[in-house]
Every structure is written in C-alpha cells, then in structure tokens.
C-alpha cells in the first residue's frame, strides 16, 4: 500500500468509525465548508456509515455555487462581444444566469469561449490572438487567486495589453463569520477547506475558535482525513476546549504559503463582494489594485455589474448557510435537477444539491 492509499485504507477507516461511534456523546452538526469535501464524503460512501448523531451541512465553499447571478450575467454579456474570447475553467459553463442562460448556450450560439486548465493557458491564448481581447473568468477562492495574480504579473512583464481578468474572487474567512453571526445556522464545528488552507494556513481561522468557541479542522479529502477530523471535533466539544487544528499537515503548512499571499495581494485588494444566496459580505472579495487596472476586465471593458434579482423559489442560499438540507428545498429533484438546474448548488459538480441528487441511494 502506498502513502496515498493508506489514507483510504478500509481497515484504518473501520477503526476510526468504531471510535467515532463510541466517543460521540452529543449531537454534532458540522459543516464542510468546501464543496470538494461534500463530494468526497459522498464518493467514499462515508455518509451512511457515520453515527446518526452527526449531521453534515454543506457550506459556501463551492466557487461556482457562490458566484452571484449578476456576475453570471456579466459573463454572458461579455460572451456576446465580437472582439472578446472568454477563457474559463470548465465548471462555469453550465451555471445558469438570468432567464436560465449559460455559457454553454452562448458558445452554441457562436460566442468564442475556450475551456482552459490554468490561467497560463488563457495568457497563451492572448499571445496567439493579438487582435482579440482574452478575458479570463476569475472565479474561485484563495486557492486559485494567487495563480491568477501571478499570471497577471507575467502579462504585465510581457507588456500584453489584450489579456484581462474578470475578478469575482471570494475569500473564505469572511463568509465563515457571516455564518457564525447568524444564530439560525447553529453550526457546531467546521471542516475547513484543504486547498484554500494551503494558501491561508491556520491564522485567518483563529477567530472561529477564539471568538465563537467553535472547533475548526483543516482537512484532506480522503476518508481517513475526514474521520480523524470528526474525532478531533468530538473531542474538542467534549473538553469544551476549542482550537483550529491542521489535520492536513501533509499538504498544508501551519503558516500557509506566504509567497502566494504576497503575489495575490500585490495584484488584488479586498473589497465587499456579492455571494449568491447570501448577499453582500464585507471585505470578502478581491478587486484589482489601481496599478493593475489595465488588466481589470471590469474597467477596461466598461462592465457594470448590476445586482440581478434572486431566482424565484431557489433555496440555494439556505442550503449554502446550512439552514436547509438540499432535499428539503421544494424544487429539489422536481423543478431543479442536474439536467435542468435552477440554482448553482445543483449545477456545480461540487454543489451540495447535485451531490445529494447524484449520490444518495
């Protein structure tokens, strides 16, 4: 068994599950902040094996899910311009905007949209198409923002004028504060995102334990990681001794990646941002610093983001905040399915509604 396999070892998991069953002495509502954790829990088949007293809630950590309707509308407006090539990660293609339109439909109608695997690919696209403006859709959290910032620095070095980024990045810690301030959320503990934490480290989450007396565990994506983290949460609640623990030490340094943060904040600065289903969260987004405004698609292409009304009937906001389980939404599985998603939680491969719909037996 190699190292990677050992984190999925059935015998090890069985032991951890037995411990979890015997040590859980009070109900535990934990939120997996990150969509990849939601999917990992389903995919590994852990969900039906957990003790009944454990309720897991899906959080606002799927970047596709929290991209606001008005931001999707801005993508679609851009996709209609003759001189623009949109470059995007694949999972934004099916996100519904106003009136159910999405980038897939825009592409079928003739919009020039390229699915890329990294922002560097988008930069290459700009180099190859000097007569067009290539706009990279900057959606994501702290995980992707530094790479995108680094790409902007490269574009600046190369004097590229036809590469722009539409920055709708979001930051995770401010969203956690909103959840903790809302008494209806009633979250006992957080499974903190592994990928985002490789950049952030422990420090930005400390307020969760210190100010709100809530445990938080930075976790990997294998069953052993998740089970070990649940045991840490149970133990902390038993002892009423709350802290942020880094369970994912093989990938996450306690201090995060200082260089990545430096790059990110050399290009971007924080600003208020709109989150789908949640609304405006102060200082939770990243916008271009003035000296990089030449790369800011919003300014360079004169795009105005006007707040679109929420989609009628869609309860994705309640689901993202852990106030509602996907199956309790009146649209779930009826008016809203992966084939015809109404809300973003159903469209994203990492969305909680899509995960419940796809994986629940």
């Amino acid at each position, binding site marked *: 068994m190699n190292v990677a396999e050992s984190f999925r070892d059935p015998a090890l998991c069985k032991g951890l599950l037995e411990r979890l069953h015997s040590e859980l002495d009070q109900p535990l509502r934990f939120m997996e902040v990150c969509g990849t954790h939601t999917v990992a829990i389903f995919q590994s088949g852990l969900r039906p094996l957990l003790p009944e007293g454990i309720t897991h809630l899906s959080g606002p950590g799927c970047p596709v899910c929290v991209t606001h309707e008005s931001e999707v509308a801005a993508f679609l407006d851009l996709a209609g311009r003759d001189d623009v090539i949109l470059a995007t990660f694949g999972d934004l293609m099916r996100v519904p905007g106003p009136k159910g339109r999405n980038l897939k439909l825009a592409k079928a109608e003739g919009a020039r949209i390229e699915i890329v695997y990294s922002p560097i690919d988008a930069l290459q696209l700009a180099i190859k198409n000097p007569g067009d403006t290539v706009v990279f859709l900057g959606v994501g959290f702290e995980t*992707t923002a530094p790479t995108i910032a680094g790409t902007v620095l490269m574009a600046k070095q190369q004097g590229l004028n036809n590469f722009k980024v539409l920055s709708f990045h979001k930051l995770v810690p401010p969203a956690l504060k909103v959840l903790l301030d809302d008494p209806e959320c009633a979250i006992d503990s957080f499974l903190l995102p592994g990928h985002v934490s490789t950049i952030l480290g422990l420090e930005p989450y400390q307020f969760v334990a210190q100010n709100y007396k809530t445990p938080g565990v930075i976790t990997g994506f294998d069953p052993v990681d998740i089970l070990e983290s649940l045991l840490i949460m149970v133990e902390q609640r038993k002892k009423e001794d709350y802290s942020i623990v880094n369970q994912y030490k093989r990938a996450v340094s306690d201090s995060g990646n200082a260089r990545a943060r430096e790059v990110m904040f050399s290009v971007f600065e924080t600003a208020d941002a709109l989150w789908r289903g949640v609304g405006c969260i102060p200082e939770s987004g990243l916008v271009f610093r003035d000296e990089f405004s030449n790369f800011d698609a919003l300014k360079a292409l004169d795009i105005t983001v006007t707040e679109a009304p929420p989609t009628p009937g869609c309860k994705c906001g309640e689901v993202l905040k852990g106030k509602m389980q996907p199956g309790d939404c009146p649209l779930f599985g009826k008016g809203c399915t992966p084939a015809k998603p109404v809300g973003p939680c159903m469209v994203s491969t990492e969305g909680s509604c899509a995960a419940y719909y*796809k994986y629940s037996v």
Partner: protein
Amino acid sequence: MSKATLAEQTLLLDHGSGGQASNRLIGSLFFKYFDNPILNAMNDAARLEIVGPLSMSTDSYTVDPIFFPGGDIGTLAVHGTVNDVAMMGARPKYLSCGFILEEGLPMETLERIVASMANAANEAGVTIVTGDTKVVPRGAVDKVFINTTGIGEIFASPAPTGSSAQPGDAVLVSGTMGDHGLTVLSGREGLNFATDIKSDSAPLNHMVEALISQIGDIHVLRDPTRGGLATTLNEIAGQSGVCINLREGDVPVRESVRNGCSFLGLDPLYLANEGKLICILPQEKAQAALELMRSMPYGADAAQVGTVRNGDDGPGKAGQVVLETPLGGHRLLAMLEGEQLPRIC
C-alpha cells in the same frame, strides 16, 4: 504515394468531385489498402454472402486529435463498429466506410488513417466492402470525419441483449477502465502526462466469439464506450429492470489513469473505453469466463466488478446502479449529465 506531385500531396475539392481526381484517389489509396473482390467489383453496391439473423450498427467518428497513443481515428472507426456488431453475439463480416474530408488535408495523413483501418479490419477479420468520399471546403469539418456501418451474423442463441440481466448474475469487465477517454482528453488539451497512458482501442469480436462458444449462457454483452462503465451499467439496469451492485475496489483502473483523473477532477468510471467489454452471465460461470478472457490478448486484466440483484433487495432500486465503496458504504452511481468538465479547484 511517394512519387506524387506537390498538388497531389494535398487533398483538394477535386478529389471529391466524382471525376478523374476522385478515381485516382480511390484507385491509389482505398483500393490499395482495402483490396478485396467485393470492393474491387466497383458496382454501385456490395454483393454480400450473409445469412440472418443479422446484427447491424453504424457510428460516426469525429475524434480530436485524430492520432493519439494507442490508435487513431481509423482504428477507432473499425474497432468501434466491429465491437458494436459483436456485442449482439454476432460475427462481424462486412463494413462500409464513409469519409468526410477537409480540403487541404495532407494526403499522407489520409494514407496513414486508411492504412490503420486496413490493419484493424484485417485483425478483426472483417472486409470493407463499400465506401464513399466527400471533400468539403476548409473549415467545414475538422480534418476528417469517418462513418462506418457494420453487419454481422448473430450466432448466439439466444443473443445477449441489454434487457437480459438477471438477479444473481455476475458483472465482469474485460480490463481497465478509462484508458481511451483520458488519452484522448490529454492529447486534445496538450496535457502531456508523463505516463504510460494510451488508448485501449481494440477489436473484441474474437473474445465475444470465444465467450459465447466456450462459456455460453451470456446474458448481456456491451462495450462501455462514451459515458463509460457507469453510464453503460445504468442503461443495462434500466433495460433489464434490475439493480446493479458495483464494487468500486474491484474495478480495474490503471494507477496512471487514476492519478490523471484525480488531477483533472474526472471520474474514470465515466470515461470512454474502446477495447473493453462488459459481460453479464450466471455467477457459476463467472470464473471460467474470467479465465478465458485473461488468456486472450485484450483481456489480461479482466475482473468481476459486481453483481445483479433485485431492486428491493438492498440499497437502491430497480434501474439503478449502486456503488459499494471499499469502506463498505453505498452510494448511487448515476448516469452522467452532460460532459465531464475540468473544475476550478
């Protein structure tokens, strides 16, 4: 074609005109490689010696890139249709072949593809008896599209069908899953994985013939092409009105494919295969079928991956595929919605 003039080294609209240029192309290329008496007779249609019941299938091939590790669009066009015909418990005998070609295609590229097709047909033991060539203006197609139609004699009785899976049956696969899909995807996107990933494109008709004649009582045969194992098993579960229990830990997947999928956020169970089959048959025959497949050129990694059961006999219901994870948990393995796309993080 080494003595060709410069103009003859590139495909022109003239080559699809039906005139002299077409005749030269057909004579120097298609007849040279596909050489057989039925084609050479040059009639409007092929005269075939064949008896029923028959299995017939058609498919169009538009793969990008047209050349990839382990095969090319030509091998796919033969293997894909041969395998579809064979999965009905048939011996594929004849193929038709229609080309839609883009003006400006290097003749050398076309020749490589035609030569691949001839080799693939030869290995499968099928004859390409009729064809068609169209050349369309540059940009109207992407280099080359190929349509093949295959016809074969069904020799299994009863013939395997997607609606014949029965509770208690074993679900076997003839080898590793996802090799073709990941190879083509990584080739298309220029990802250049430094690994041994290559397409599994292969003819499966000889394996089918051996399974039916030596093992018998084969209820279902399917090749899990687009949509992969997960989608094909869902189709079978729906057609047969049964629940299929798939044991994730038993599904053979190459480590390189698993790692590539993990990197891209893809699931190998949904990736296309072009040289693998699913065989569903009574459990008591499973071991013999596995041993037979493992003794054949394209079945070395054959494995039992699951069982068929009644819908009300455990988690899941009729028409569904339930995945049993190595931890002993269960989840639904649904049919793929849309295409798999790489994700943000």
